[in-house]
């Protein structure tokens, strides 16, 4: 029996990726397919007064027009499918279907939309000012535990702090705290109070969110670009106002999501509604420029953090305030996650969090890799270094003394954690990186170049429970592992499926992963987001495989005598302990299960399964021995994924350019299930981390509210030339006790630790300069090196 957990493998879908056979949403075709294009808002906030499409409809080749009046209106402030009150530039107002895209575009040019411009907000703080603009007619804030939107305004007195370049801190919409904050600050040797801005950035998934759809026998077939599989279906059903059993979702591959395609999103049902209206298949391709409007983005922060440290570096008190730029719609809870991250990663003895999430008429925000945790890592980690300098201790030491262990607590609720080897990650990384030697290079000069060293940390909550697993042993002796998780590109759909094979002691060659198409009978799995796949779906696959093992033993006892406890599995057989000749092969057991029926072949099933899993099992009933179970394993805490990055850079003080000389990322992901995969996540996330920290930007024209960063070359995700040709990665590889194979997720913090390490290294090269702003651009570095004031005002947002 091969050891499948912890070993490398060739992913079943990788050959398709290198040969071009892998099908993404835009690669599907259907007979008679129409193309559809969107008419989108040219202004950041407006109201449709009239639409005159008569000229367009009369054009040859134009088949139909779909307006907001023909699709359901989502409850405010959710993202809309189509709208008569656009809240951002590029928000879809209507769609045109035609025989080809050029015709659809020509038709759109002839549609007259009378739009009434409405006030708009770009800067959260401006919106909070008395009399400031609201992004929505109903208000400017989404408030935790409240439905809808309301208005939040601060007083002029609240804004007095702005004159000193500090974040004003008016009435928050969320507060939590623990411990004695005042006592902490009173006993601190060093207290720092820093105001900071972290910029938003687009997701830049390489595959635009194209979709194709058609209807057959009342069912909607939708081919989309989504990170997840099962999780998408109820969302699509809601947008389509049909039962989820009538949605057939095909998502074999996803060309990048990074959080922006975790669940169903509204634009992807536009072709479905258009297909319903026209009776023909409809493809809607999304352009790169459109992707910058509807493709989601990371929220920005205007924040302030006060930290009080003991002489040895221990963090005694931390007071955090975040004003989040929420975009115009529901947005995402980055600000809350950021606060949770601070409570866990730096284990402050006392902490208070306050915040408010303010609506802006900028692209809708959603989760992006390390949502909140990675922004706050970039803001806080250089502050740690500033404190370390003042305390006269090493940057490593200040992190080590505050590192969370298994007793660490999370957030205002002080939730326990399942495991935390952050200290081990720091120690292991420092040794492998040779931190002690490399840190002595700090400040080394060669001409205009200077060496900077940095260490950064990040975290993400990375696992949950309560989802279902589904496996099937068929009479041909194959183990079919049905997975509904999705295929984001991490290959964790494979690693978690291998857990089922491991439990059933099946050779990997005899395993088939069923995925990517609702018709294959896929269980209710969590989405492939939040770094949760490894923890959550190794549990579901474990539960399903254990159910299959139980059924194999019961079945063997029925046929071969004795009781189920007398049987064991091995070599793809179930056999009697002490008498291996009394055995059934898995192939024979698959056949016998079909003959016996009942729970063996899926004609009966556990009551606690999700309805999606039940539907899947019903469809598969009678095809083999079916293992189907809900993950009812214990989980008594938050599952932390942790990461540490170590970096050495060579910074040119005259050009502001830097070269990364050395980078090591260390993953604390529980047991390593797929070494090559962890390395790919670590080093790939570091590339994204470089972009987040120094390159990627979202800028808007303040007069018209129009986006200025609508191309890859403007918004600037990193290229080959922005990152080193070789980096290093490692993992702690200690099992989490609440996962059957010890696994936790990891994808997200591996970005934040690299961003933080880079910013700390830049600060270090500049003698400890703290920028109070990300991304740190070359002109900011030049100004800092020359001792000149920065061109951006403190608290200014959307800077280039």
């Amino acid at each position, binding site marked *: 029996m091969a050891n499948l957990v912890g070993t490398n493998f060739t992913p079943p879908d990788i050959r398709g990726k*290198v040969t071009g056979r892998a*099908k993404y949403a835009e690669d599907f075709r259907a007979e008679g397919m129409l193309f559809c294009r969107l008419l989108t808002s040219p202004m950041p906030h407006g109201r449709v007064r009239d639409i005159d499409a008569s000229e367009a409809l009369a054009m040859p080749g134009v088949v139909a027009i779909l307006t907001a009046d023909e699709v359901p209106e989502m409850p405010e402030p959710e993202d809309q499918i189509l709208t008569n009150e656009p809240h951002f530039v*590029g928000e879809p107002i209507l769609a045109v279907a035609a025989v080809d895209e050029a015709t659809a575009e020509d038709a759109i040019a002839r549609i007259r939309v009378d*739009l*009434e*411009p409405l006030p708009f907000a770009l800067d959260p703080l401006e919106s909070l000012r008395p009399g400031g603009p609201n992004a929505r007619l109903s208000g400017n804030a989404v408030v935790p535990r409240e439905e809808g939107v309301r208005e939040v305004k601060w007083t002029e007195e609240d804004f007095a702090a702005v004159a000193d370049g500090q974040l004003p801190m008016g009435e928050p919409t969320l507060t939590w705290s623990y411990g004695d904050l005042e006592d902490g600050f009173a006993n601190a040797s060093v207290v720092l109070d820093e105001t900071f801005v972290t910029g938003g950035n687009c997701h830049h998934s390489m595959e635009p969110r194209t979709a194709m759809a058609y209807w057959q026998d009342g069912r909607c077939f939708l081919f989309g670009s989504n990170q997840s599989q099962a999780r998408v279906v109820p969302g699509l059903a809601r947008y389509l106002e049909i039962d989820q059993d009538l949605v057939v979702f095909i998502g074999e591959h996803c060309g990048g999501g990074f959080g922006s395609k975790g669940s169903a999103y509204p634009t992807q049902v536009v072709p479905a509604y258009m297909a319903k209206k026209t009776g023909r298949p409809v493809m809607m391709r999304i352009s790169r420029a459109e992707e910058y409007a509807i493709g989601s983005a990371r929220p920005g922060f205007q924040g302030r953090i006060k930290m009080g440290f003991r002489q040895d570096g221990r963090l005694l008190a931390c007071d955090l305030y975040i004003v989040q730029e929420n975009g115009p719609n529901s947005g995402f809870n980055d600000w809350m996650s950021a606060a949770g991250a601070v409570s866990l990663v730096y284990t402050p003895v006392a902490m208070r969090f306050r915040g408010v999430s303010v609506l802006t008429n900028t692209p809708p925000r959603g989760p992006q890799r390390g949502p909140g945790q990675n922004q706050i890592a970039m803001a806080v980690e250089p502050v740690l270094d500033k404190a370390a300098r003042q305390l006269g201790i090493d940057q490593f030491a200040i992190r080590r003394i505050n590192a969370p262990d298994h007793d660490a607590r999370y957030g205002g609720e002080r939730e326990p954690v399942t495991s935390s080897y952050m200290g081990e990650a720091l120690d292991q990384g420092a040794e492998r990186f040779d931190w002690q030697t490399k840190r002595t290079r700090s400040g080394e000069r060669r001409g205009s170049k200077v060496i900077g060293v940095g260490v950064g940390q990040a975290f993400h909550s990375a696992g949950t429970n309560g989802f279902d697993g589904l496996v099937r042993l068929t009479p041909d002796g194959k183990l079919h592992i049905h997975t509904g998780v999705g295929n984001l590109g991490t290959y964790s759909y494979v690693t978690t499926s291998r857990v089922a094979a491991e439990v059933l002691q099946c050779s990997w060659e005899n395993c088939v992963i069923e995925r990517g198409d609702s018709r294959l009978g896929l269980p209710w799995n969590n989405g492939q987001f939040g770094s949760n796949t490894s923890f959550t779906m190794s549990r579901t696959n474990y539960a399903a495989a254990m159910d299959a093992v139980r059924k194999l033993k019961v079945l063997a006892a029925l046929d071969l005598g004795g009781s189920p406890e007398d049987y064991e599995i091995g070599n793809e057989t179930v056999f009697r302990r002490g008498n291996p000749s009394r055995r059934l092969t898995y192939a024979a057991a698959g056949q016998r299960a079909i003959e016996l029926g009942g729970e063996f072949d899926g004609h009966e099933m556990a009551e606690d399964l999700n309805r999606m899993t039940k539907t899947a099992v019903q469809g598969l009933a009678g095809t083999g021995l079916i293992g189907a179970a809900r993950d009812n394993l214990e989980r008594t805490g938050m599952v932390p994924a942790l990461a540490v990055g170590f970096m050495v850079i060579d910074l040119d003080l005259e050009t502001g350019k830097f070269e990364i000389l050395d980078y090591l990322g260390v993953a604390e992901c529980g047991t390593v299930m797929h070494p*090559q995969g962890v390395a790919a996540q670590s080093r790939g*996330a570091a590339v994204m981390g470089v972009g987040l920290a120094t390159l990627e930007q979202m800028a808007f024209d303040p007069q018209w509210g129009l986006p200025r960063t609508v191309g890859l070359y403007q918004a600037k995700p990193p290229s080959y030339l922005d990152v080193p*040709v070789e980096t290093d990665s490692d993992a702690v590889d200690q099992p989490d006790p609440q996962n059957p194979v010890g696994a936790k997720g990891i994808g997200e913090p591996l970005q934040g630790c690299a961003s933080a390490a880079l910013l700390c290294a830049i600060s270090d090269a500049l003698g400890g300069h703290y920028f109070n702003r990300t991304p740190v651009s070359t002109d900011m570095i030049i100004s800092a090196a020359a001792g000149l004031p920065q061109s951006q005002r403190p608290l200014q947002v959307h800077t280039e």
Partner: protein
Amino acid sequence: MTDQHEFFKAEGRATLSRRDFIKGVIASGVAVSSMAYVVRTQSVPGRAGAVERLITLNVNGQTRRVDVLPNETLAMTLRYKLGLTGTKLACDRAECGSCTVIVDGVALYSCSTLTHRMRGREITTIEGLEGPSGELNPVQQAFIDELGPQCGFCTPGQVMSAVALLVDNPNPTRQEAREAMAGNLCRCGAYEFYLNGVMRAANSVTRS
């Protein structure tokens, strides 16, 4: 923050039509293009100016006759007329390299190449790399071995750039490979793994 309203007031009207607004923003130089992806896949009856031309292309060693519009890009012809969907479109404006194909031995962005200029040229797409019995090009195999692709959307373009590089320079240094591949963006950040693949493929080709 209220600049827009001042502007509207100065213009002597409270509201603007979408068309006026677009005119205004074009004048301010920050218009958002929504016209990046446009292809006419079928002729529209009675449409003036829709001149179709039947031309011959050499794609992956095969002669293909195809109707091509004057302004049609190679990427569109490949994907929508020849059924070769391995060539990906991610930006359609020469920024990302996902659409890279090889023309007469040179890597080219097919999104920014007019198909009419491809007459008499040898075009190789990702579908044309495999041997007659499905054996992979050394670059493809090396990308599998090194776990190059993550989401995989940029992968065909990365493969084509790497193949073109190795035709030109069978023994590149890692630095040379990085520069040759610099026109291919990967949002998953798998650059290091693709470079590993290029170096592995170069070694395997040199050895054999």
